């Protein structure tokens, strides 16, 4: 398919375009650090599993992982609630939900890989089909972990509430633990995939944009089509929802 967009500098973003605003980048990195801490405190050896007192002590101090796990779990919950509210109200849910055009893109990508290797790469919207499917998977996994984790808070004593282990039946608690465990293991798989794709050479500009917030106009023109109308860095428009077209000179 011929590129109908003008070359750089003419009626298109010639400078940096904003891909992720600061609030979204902060959410991403808070979620990332939270998930890593939760995985560490969830999977590292614990006394009740191995049947002996596993001392994580450093300088004689024994680390109790349970409070760390649920406090960071609450931080993750707050971050996810913030993201859901922001994405639903201030941003576009349609940008991340797979749709018919994504299926058409997937077909064109497959055709290009098999039978039309000389054609230019298929451009997509702000998020590719692969990114949308990954986001869908991580949404299901993390929401499962959050819901089951919040239920499990009923089984611990804290300064704010007393435990109530009879909130669910024994069988019900078993289901909660199984869901939480398998969702946690699936999260490991998704984490491996996410780090791999974030470090792929052709994807590094995505990773950079999650740190500094922008991509170059050239990267935008090569990768995305007009389904994504970004805001240019330094412009007065709000929220990346208005076209960032510069008048032709």
């Amino acid at each position: 398919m011929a590129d109908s967009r003008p070359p750089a500098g003419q009626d298109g973003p010639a400078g940096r375009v904003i891909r992720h605003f600061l609030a979204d980048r902060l959410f991403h990195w808070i979620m990332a650090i939270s998930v890593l801490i939760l995985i560490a405190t969830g999977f590292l050896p614990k006394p009740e599993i191995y049947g002996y007192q596993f001392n994580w002590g450093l300088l004689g101090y024994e680390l109790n992982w349970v409070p760390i796990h649920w406090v960071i779990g609450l931080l993750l919950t707050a971050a996810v609630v913030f993201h859901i509210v922001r994405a639903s109200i201030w941003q576009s849910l349609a940008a991340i939900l797979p749709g018919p055009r994504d299926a058409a893109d997937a077909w064109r990508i497959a055709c290009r890989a098999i039978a039309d290797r000389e054609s230019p790469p298929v451009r997509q919207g702000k998020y590719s089909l692969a990114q949308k499917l990954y986001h869908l998977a991580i949404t299901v996994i993390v929401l499962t972990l959050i819901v089951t984790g919040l239920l499990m808070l009923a089984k611990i004593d804290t300064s704010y509430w007393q435990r109530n282990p009879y909130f669910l039946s024994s069988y019900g608690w078993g289901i909660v633990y199984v869901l939480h465990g398998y969702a946690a293991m699936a999260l490991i798989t998704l984490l491996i995939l996410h780090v791999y794709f974030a470090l792929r050479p052709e994807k590094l500009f995505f990773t950079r944009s999650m740190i500094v917030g922008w991509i170059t106009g050239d990267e935008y023109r090569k990768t995305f089509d007009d389904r994504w109308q970004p805001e240019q860095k330094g412009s007065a428009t709000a929220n990346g929802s208005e076209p960032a077209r510069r008048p032709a000179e």
Partner: protein
Amino acid sequence: MEMEWVRVTRSVYGQTELSGASWDPLLLFVLAGIAIVVLHALYKMTLAPRAKASDSS
């Protein structure tokens, strides 16, 4: 090697109760992630269309 998928215990009444997920499948999840990474890397190195200088990679 027989793999356990869930952990079960016996209650004080002698009933079998579900107590949680078994950690035996953890290695499968890790290996699945690594397998997808390896397969994708091999695909990009061998079969994927090559990016031209004027295209994105």
